[in-house]
């Protein structure tokens, strides 16, 4: 009888320890953010001062497949606009299509697609750039700025 009680008590202790382990593990995992800092670089054209003011990742499911950028053009001219996604080691995961063409003075918003979707959780840095191209015809050379 005493041995049976001991077995039962030990078994209960075992089960409660197991439950406690599971609870603590799950609670610890669920409260801590998993991400390092996320960095956004907003590009600026040194000659004209035209600059990016916003970048927004757009997801399809869990993957980033587009980025919306907002930029201010101070001097109407041809500009190339592009964005890149980087991992926490600084490796380029994907570069967007480089868009090139004339933009007048004012605020503009564009969506730049990535040819290869990138898992959102692997993106640690987003770089955007805007660089003046002196003539629209130079856009035919398909310039990039990432």
């Amino acid at each position, binding site marked *: 009888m005493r*041995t049976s009680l001991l077995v039962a008590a030990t078994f209960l202790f*075992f089960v409660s320890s197991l439950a406690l382990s599971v609870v603590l593990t799950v609670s610890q995992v669920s409260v*801590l953010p*998993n991400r390092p*800092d*996320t960095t956004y670089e*907003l590009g600026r054209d040194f000659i004209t001062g035209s600059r990016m003011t916003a*970048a*927004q990742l757009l997801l399809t499911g869990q993957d980033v497949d587009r980025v919306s950028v907002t930029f201010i053009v101070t001097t109407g001219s041809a500009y190339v606009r592009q964005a890149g996604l980087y991992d926490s080691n600084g490796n380029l995961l994907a570069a967007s299509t480089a868009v090139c063409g004339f933009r007048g003075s004012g605020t503009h918003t564009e969506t730049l697609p990535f040819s290869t979707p990138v898992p959102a959780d692997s993106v640690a840095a987003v770089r955007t750039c805007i660089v003046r191209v002196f003539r629209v015809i130079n856009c035919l050379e398909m310039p990039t700025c990432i």
Partner: protein
Amino acid sequence: MYIVMGRKNLLIVVLLLTSVSMAVYSLAVSTGSVSQAGGSGIVDVQKVDVRVLGVSVAANTIDSATVTVSSSVSGTYLVEVFVTVGGCSSYGSTSAFLSTAPTQLAIQLNPSCPYDYPAQVRVRVTQP
């Protein structure tokens, strides 16, 4: 040993050893949680996905930033923004409830920085 100790005694020993190891593991996990919560909060735990989906800054003088963030685990988080523009650095933070739905947060920065160089906006999300 099986014959000497008997089946029940052997079971008791095994269960006791397992229980003690479970208790030690639980203690290690809970202690680790405390020390990590007091640190930078930047750890590589895959269960939670905090996403910084976008940033926006003012056009001329950067005195505020709007960030879009989400978390796979709902709760209150500390969102910090570090801005570097040329030689100027500024900082701002706020506490906010985050969930899987993207949340836009407007954060005041101090000091303000003129936007005369490319701007780097670094966002950190931790549990306060």
